[in-house]
């Protein structure tokens, strides 16, 4: 089994494995009203839903058919049976499948594989929690259920020729959904800014997960080197790579600061992850970021 890249079957297995250790992921909905479809999230208030919430005395204006006659029959008054307001959350996932994500050094998994693992793990958690989930770059609407996981796993594996750097171009971004973008974010930040701006407009919050190989973080190169992008389209030659390290790291920091700044402005969260760290810790962080907070 190729360690660096997933096959559809291994992806699902690994994602299930990663997700198994976590409680069902309950996405907190901030704007329940914006969602039309019912989900399994009790809103701790009366509203449309299946679960019993409370009995209250019927007030003038209540529809007759809303009176719970069985309860009313036990006493003199008339009672209305209220259900808890329940809404299903939508988790939109975008995994950058550009060529740059296929970089893997030493025997570490590629960034793409780690991103896919994390994305599907999140999807598994969401599905277990009854949420709906989908891949943002697909036209399919978010759905729940295991069948959706299988579809997502297939879609994630559906890689082909890819540009050097990817950019999120979500096709479906439901109002109030939550989104997780997994990428190295090394490409042009402009499309990302646009996408996040559009998402924020639609009330979508979420997490940016920057996945980097430790080599990209440390730049342990020296000597005369010709750097090439993963597709080989971009070349850069240096005579003493070591002398570029500081400048590179500065630029990396700047890029990260840019991303954090972007997140801060749109209400997203930013998570950096290295492929030499365990996927579980990243998933935990993401769970915490997406899960019930406050």
């Amino acid at each position: 089994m190729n360690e660096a890249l997933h096959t559809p079957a291994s992806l699902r297995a690994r994602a299930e494995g990663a997700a198994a250790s976590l409680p069902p992921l309950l996405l907190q909905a901030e704007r329940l009203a914006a969602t039309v479809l019912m989900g399994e999230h009790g809103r701790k208030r009366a509203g449309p839903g299946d679960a019993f919430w409370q009995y209250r005395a019927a007030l003038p204006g209540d529809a007759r058919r809303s009176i719970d006659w069985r309860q009313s029959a036990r006493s003199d008054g008339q009672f209305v049976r209220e259900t808890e307001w329940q809404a299903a959350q939508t988790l939109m996932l975008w995994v950058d499948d550009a060529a740059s994500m296929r970089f893997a050094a030493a025997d570490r998994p590629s960034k793409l594989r780690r991103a896919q693992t994390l994305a599907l793990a999140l999807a598994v958690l969401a599905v277990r929690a009854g949420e709906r989930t989908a891949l943002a770059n697909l036209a399919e609407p978010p759905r729940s259920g295991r069948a959706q996981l299988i579809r997502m796993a297939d879609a994630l594996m559906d890689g082909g020729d890819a540009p050097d750097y990817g950019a999120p171009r979500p096709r479906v971004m439901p109002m109030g959904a939550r989104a997780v973008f997994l990428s190295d974010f090394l490409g042009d930040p402009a499309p990302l800014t646009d996408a996040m701006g559009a998402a924020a407009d639609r009330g979508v919050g979420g997490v940016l997960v920057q996945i980097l190989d430790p080599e990209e973080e440390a730049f342990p190169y020296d000597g005369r080197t010709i750097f090439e992008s993963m597709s080989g389209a971009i070349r850069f030659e240096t005579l003493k790579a070591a002398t570029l390290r500081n400048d590179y790291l500065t630029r990396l920091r700047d890029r990260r600061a840019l991303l954090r700044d972007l997140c801060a402005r749109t209400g997203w969260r930013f998570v950096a992850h290295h492929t030499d760290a365990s996927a579980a810790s990243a998933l935990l962080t993401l769970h915490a970021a997406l899960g019930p907070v406050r």
Partner: protein
Amino acid sequence: MSGLAFTTPLLLLGLILLPILWWLLRAVPPAPIRRRFPGIVLLLGLRDDESQTATTPWWLLALRMLAVAAAIVGFAGPILNPRQAGEGQGPLLVVMDASWASARDWPQRIERVEGLLRDAARAGRTAAVLPLTDPLPDAIEWQGAEAWVERLPSIRPRPWAPDYAGLADLDVGGATIVWLSDGLDRPGRDALDATVIEGLRPVLGLTPATYEDGIVSLPALRSPAAGPVAVPVRALGPGPNGGIVELARAEAAFPDGAGEATVEFDLPSELRNRIARFEVDGTRSAGAVALADDSLARREVALLTVARGEGEDLLDPLFYLRRALAPSADVIEGDLDTILPANPDVLVLADVARLSPAEADRVEDWVAEGGLLLRFAGPRLAGSDAGRAAEDPLLPVRLRDGGRSVGGALSWGEPKTLRPFDEDSPFAGLPVPEDVTVTSHVVAQPDPTLATRAIAALADGTPLVTRKALGQGQVVLFHVTANAEWSNLPLSGLFVRMLERLAIATRPARPDADALDGTVWTPRVVLDGFGVERDAGDRAGVAGEVLADATPGPDLPPGLYDGPAQSLAVNVLAADDALAPAAYPPGTDVQPMALQEETDLTPYLLTLALLLVSADVLATLWLGGRLRGGAVAVLALALSVAQPPAAHAQEEPPAIPSEVALAYVVTGDARTDEVSLAGLRGLSEILTARTSVEPDPPRGVDLEADELAFFPMLYWPVVEDQPLPSADAYAKLNAYLRGGGMIVFDTRDADIGGFGSSSPASRRLRDIAAPLDIPPLEPLPADHVLTRSFYLLQDFPGRYASRDLWVEASPDVDVVEGMPFRNLNDGVTPVLIGANDWAAAWALDEGGQPLLPLGGGFAGERQREIAFRFGVNLVMHVLSGNYKSDQVHVPALLDRLGN
């Protein structure tokens, strides 16, 4: 002989490595690593802050190659102009044209011959040296080459041409022949099959001077006739003080390709008459000297003119005299007040009877100092009473009243002719023309001296010309007129020759062979090969016939020859001589004279290599953009290591002292300067220890560069070869002296001569001090304030204990009875001149111990102590002036204050 050789030529094989090195150095830097890297977008636009070109630039490569090549060649030991080991077999015969033309580079010739002989000696060959200006020996004297080296100094160039006759017949015994040629063409150059060594400097010569129309001209010759050049020619003669000085200087401007140029001197007669010789400046050769004999000299004849009427030229008593004298003498005319100050050689009084007593006294004084007074009779003299009653000092004889007329219209008898001259007469030998007659003349009073005074007489024995000595001069009287009134003698050629014999007029030209026949000429001065005049001593006289030929040779060395009433110069070159470069037989090996010095090029090449490497370092750093101060400093350090350290890194005190400091004049002679510094240091220490003067460390003063005003006293040791200060320095020194400075001149030679003697240092001192503004000097008087300005001293010893010490002359003040000192109250003497080498006595080393020994034992120590005391007195005198002199007034001042 010139060329390049290597001590270890095999090392040059290392040069083969250069192409390999080239290839190695050309190799590009290591191939780059190709690396896929997603972060590349972050790298884009970054620049390597140290750029490194992929290939070494060709010029840097060339620099390195050159450095390596220089090192390789340097280690191979290149030697420029290597001296080849003695070559040839068998005896070595060195033939030298030891002529005047060889004298110009004689030392090089001797050195060259010595080199040849030493080479031959190393090879164990016998040798002989044959100067061709000496008579050829019958057989060549073969000796060990070493023995000939010893004899070389005795070979001198001769002031004549070498004689090649008989050279071809010489038995050279199969020897290797080297001929040191003087470079002049002479017949017989092909007499020997020899290797010729020739000097490169042109031969310069001067031919005898001629005088015409007031201009002295002498043709200068040269060989070979190369490009245009101007050669300075000097005219030398006795100066006002008797020494030989340069009277005039002119240039012989040789045009391009010309072998002859004429030098012309336009000189006042006063100078021209003094010229003793002409010489080409800077050339030591007898040929470059032209001795001047009497032919240049013109006597100055003064004619006393008496105002007369116009239109009487032919009757003027001076008319014929002028005509007779003009070609051969400088004639000045005027009254006595005009002509006597000109100090003429001859004063002519033509029919002047009486001079005023004052004038007569002056003329008499002038004659007594060596003048020649020539008087002619005439109606006035005949009619006057001069020399009648008693002998007039200005007349050689007493005269009878009136005169005598013979053969005239109113007299009987025939006009008188002249009697042949006596043997002891100055006119002896002059032919007497028959047609010279005398019709009137003044008659001498017979007296016992008349016979000795008459030097020419008429046929009847009546004196015609009389002469007497007066002091160092003489008075000559022609008893006839100077015009044709009384006699036709002035019209004859005899008159002119009589004037010549009286040394009034000089002969215009060289006597011809007939005139020389039978005469004997004694050499007065002879030239040696270098053109130096030597006293002829008791050389034998030379027969006139030999002189007529005038080709200098062993029996007729060039020089001045004295003959009857004339001196004659024999010069190396005759008037019609020409110089031509020597033509050697075809195939002759002609080598230059100068043997180029062997030069070891190793240090130069290694230094070059080092410099190139340094340049390479710099260039590499520059290419890498890392050329910073540190790198330059490292490089400078490397360069300073490469160069030999400065001879003596001395800690120099600042140029401007903050305290009083003693100073000495830097002479350029290292030892002298060292002693001066040590001496002044010693004196400074003594001053600090004993007096309130605590001077700064002494320092040397460069007269050209340093400011003198800060030093109260300059100690100036005089070195004989010290260069004279420049005009600027003199101006500075004079300003220093006027500003109250004091210079102590120390000739340091009291052991070999006191002040005023002619030691080299004192001569130099005279030259140095001549332009200085120095007042009259006197020997240090016993009451000079220097004797008591601190210590009471009467001796001023340094290393020598001479008492010759000169200071500014004190004004003439009488000694007051009972006063120990004269009442002198003037300033500090600006100069002090002595010869005692004080610095040597004062000199202390760093540890305070005497640097130089002085005398023996206690006496020496005592002398040093006195020397120090003199130094203290000197500095006290300089600093406090005549303060001690003022103490003389103290009793008077106290007296006035008290009462």
